[in-house]
């Protein structure tokens, strides 16, 4: 009883400000918690990357650089490397050196390319970003739209055809799809180039260059999209079917909303949420998929680079790539999470 009176006595303004402040604080704390997950994950990855090669039995230098590299190594280079990695010092000092090196962008030296690992990766990365990025966007959007249309017409012809067709495509592994596309469109019909990301030494510039790049991108992109589109499609379709049964859809229909509004603005938007989450989870698959497809099409991306560095046992390069890939996965996941909270007011506007 007294409590109640106290609250009444407080001027509403003071109460309001206080409330606002607490609200801001809680949202800050929540944000902090949100980001700290990523920070923790990142730290773990860094540490593993440091610890694992050093935990291997034998010479750490051998573990880090690989046997073959050491065979061809001059004693001079060896001492330099040991000094650089602080291998002759205590673990903690090694760790500090490792972190400092990373912070300055030093991922090590690629023995095969005789270049900084980071520089090598950066050479190849744009192509991978182009390929996986577009594949991700296109397969998600396409799967989403097809899923909405299909779920809305559940049991009718379009739905049945789409469902059967996409399930069929989903059965193929990425590389197989790549090989099929390569054979059919590249070898038999000669419609697409057989390898590379652009025509070498063509001296193209401006718009023709863009066209050339797209021409090269087409087949690997199609392979990735065709294999990936199904999961987005299936998820959207299923979510759509459940969402359509929700009361708010009935409300929308009772308002006299048009089919398009019901499909996309109401049912579709609500079905998008799980799809966004799933897309985040799909990124690692996408990357492995890209790896195989890049190999099949000899597409000069990070996947192809990884394959090559495995062949040449370029250990520092392999480690650098893996680190970059995990970092990429983390970052995209973070972006997806941020996007999700933008899309769902229940996350961003807590009561």
């Amino acid at each position, binding site marked *: 009883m007294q409590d109640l009176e106290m609250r009444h006595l407080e001027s509403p303004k003071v109460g309001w400000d206080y409330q606002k402040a607490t609200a801001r604080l809680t949202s800050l704390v929540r944000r902090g918690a949100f980001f700290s997950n990523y920070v923790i994950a990142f730290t773990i990855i860094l540490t593993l990357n440091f610890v694992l090669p050093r935990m291997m039995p034998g010479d750490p230098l051998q573990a880090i650089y690989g046997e073959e590299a050491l065979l061809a190594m001059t004693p001079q280079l060896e001492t330099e490397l040991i000094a650089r990695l602080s291998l002759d010092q205590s673990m903690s000092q090694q760790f500090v050196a490792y972190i400092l090196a990373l912070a300055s962008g030093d991922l090590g030296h690629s023995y095969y390319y005789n270049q900084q690992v980071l520089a090598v990766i950066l050479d190849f990365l744009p192509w991978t970003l182009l390929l996986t990025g577009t594949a991700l966007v296109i397969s998600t959007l396409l799967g989403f739209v097809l899923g909405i249309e299909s779920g809305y017409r559940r049991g009718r012809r379009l739905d049945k055809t789409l469902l059967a067709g996409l399930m069929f495509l989903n059965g193929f592994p990425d590389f197989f799809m790549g090989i099929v596309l390569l054979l059919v469109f590249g070898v038999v019909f000669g419609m697409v180039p057989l390898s590379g990301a652009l025509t070498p030494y063509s001296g193209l510039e401006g718009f023709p260059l863009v066209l050339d790049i797209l021409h090269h991108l087409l087949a690997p992109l199609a392979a990735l999209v065709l294999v990936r589109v199904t999961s987005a499609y299936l998820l959207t379709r299923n979510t759509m079917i459940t969402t359509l049964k929700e009361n708010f859809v009935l*409300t929308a229909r009772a308002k006299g909303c048009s089919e398009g509004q019901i499909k996309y603005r109401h049912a579709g938007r609500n079905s998008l949420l799980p799809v966004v989450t799933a897309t985040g989870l799909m990124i690692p698959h996408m990357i492995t998929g890209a790896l195989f497809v890049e190999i099949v099409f000899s597409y000069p991306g990070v996947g192809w680079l990884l394959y090559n560095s495995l062949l040449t046992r370029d250990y520092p390069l392999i480690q650098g790539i893996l680190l970059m890939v995990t970092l990429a996965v983390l970052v995209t996941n973070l972006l997806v999470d941020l996007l999700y909270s933008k899309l769902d007011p229940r996350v961003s506007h807590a009561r």
Partner: protein
Amino acid sequence: MLEISDLKVSYDGTEILAGIDLDLLRGDSLAIIGESGAGKTTLGLALMGLLDGRTSGRIHLDGKDVLSLDGKERRKMRGKDMAMVFQNVEDALDPLMTVSDQIEEAISAHREKGGPEDVRDRVRRLFKSVGLEEEKGESYPHQLSGGEKQRVLIAMALANDPQVLILDEPTASLDAVTKAEITKLLRERIREKICLVITHDISTAAKLTEKMAVLYAGRIIEMGETTGLLENPRHPYTRGLIRSSPNMTTTKDLQGIPGRMVHGVAGCPFSDRCTQKIDRCSKEVPQLSDAGDRMIACHRGGIIPLLEISKVKTCFGDFVAVNGVDLTLYEGETIALVGESGSGKTTLAKTVIGLFDQEEGEIRLEGEVLVKRNREFYKKVQMIYQNPKESISHRMNVLDAVTEPLEVQKVGSPAERIAIVKRVLEEVELSSDDAFLKKYPHQISGGEAQRVAIARSLVLNPKLLIADEPTSALDASVQAKILKLLLNLQEKRGLSILFITHDIAIARKVSDRLAVMLKGKIVEEGPASDVTTSPVHPYTMRLLEVAPDLAPTREARETRGGLWGVSEGRPLRAREL
């Protein structure tokens, strides 16, 4: 004007609506009540054109044939000419849109011209009309309370000022206080509209509507003015529905309806649960037809009058014990006959059963005038007394006492009789094992003896039970159980009970109607709740004054300082608790 005729809806061959006819004018508000599964919501959805099932029949709105419209034209009507508010406030709004956007959408869906400013202006006015602050518009549904969401939904339905408004359980998920507010709001907003209130909540229906239709298994079985229909339900199902819904008006204990609603019953949809059905009921579907102040679909014209007493006068020499009594007892109903000893209530009962002859007047049973009481009569009418020894001879054991009526009426073989007896004993919650069957009256308790007496009276499956102070010799806890038992038997068998008592507190709990008897005459009669809350005759008032009362008297309360927190006015009576 909304005309619905022969509206049928079926899903996968099951008929959910089996021919609905309704005519509604502007300003009409009609409640559609019934249990879940009766087809109430289907009716609303069918009107809105939101059903996937097969719909046939006619729906005309202002002469426009709604069912013949194509999908696009139908969509244009939705939300504009007719709007619906759905049950389940919790997920009836899109969680990803602010509520004012959702209302705006309802307006712009039907707007060809007019800028966004007009729309926003309209939203503002709508918010005001449903009692919501404008700032709430920027909220997302999860930020609002249930009542606020319901207001938003109502605003949305009113957005284009539709002619027909369908409210599906408009208050179901709200707490009592919010419910009252929303009901009030709705009452104001539905004026000048054709409003259909779909609900299983009879009290909401009563507050919102003038007319009421009872839906059972896809058919309207009774329809009339809301007040009349609730006060005096005439279809057995309607009565059952009212009896089973908790409210502050009726005083009788809650009773259910035996069985379960199923669709597709042959003949009358209620026939497998009805306690007064006749052969015709399971063969022919009764049509909704005019029955005075309402429409009823029943082959027997609704609940039948089982016992009609008119102008009965019974004398002992010069003494007039019963002086011109009129009383009608309906099937499945309890009338409590209340009065002090010597008021003539027992004489009246005994006149009915034929122990005394009436001087004047006539008594009808199921419409037939009673001339002599033959064996058939005693199959239909039985009596139990205050003292079970009056009905059970001390020389008979339980088995003999209960079997005797069967023997007299020559029912069944000896083995069948024992089976019947055992069943009835179980029905009155007694043991049916051999040890108990062999017991003599002095070996069992008073409560058990009265149950045996009840079993004996029920063994012939009578339609009418006259109970003369059946519990006044028993302890309160036993009495409560016996009264419950009688109500249960009534629920199950549709037994009519003439309950004679001097105790108005008991009468109020067990009876639908109450008749107060004084000096051979009935001085006041009416629904038990009316008679006990607003008595008219001074004698009734007197009876109520002296009725058992759990609250202390006024003086006692004043000295103790307000036990109930009521410092002035009358003491709280048991019946008000």
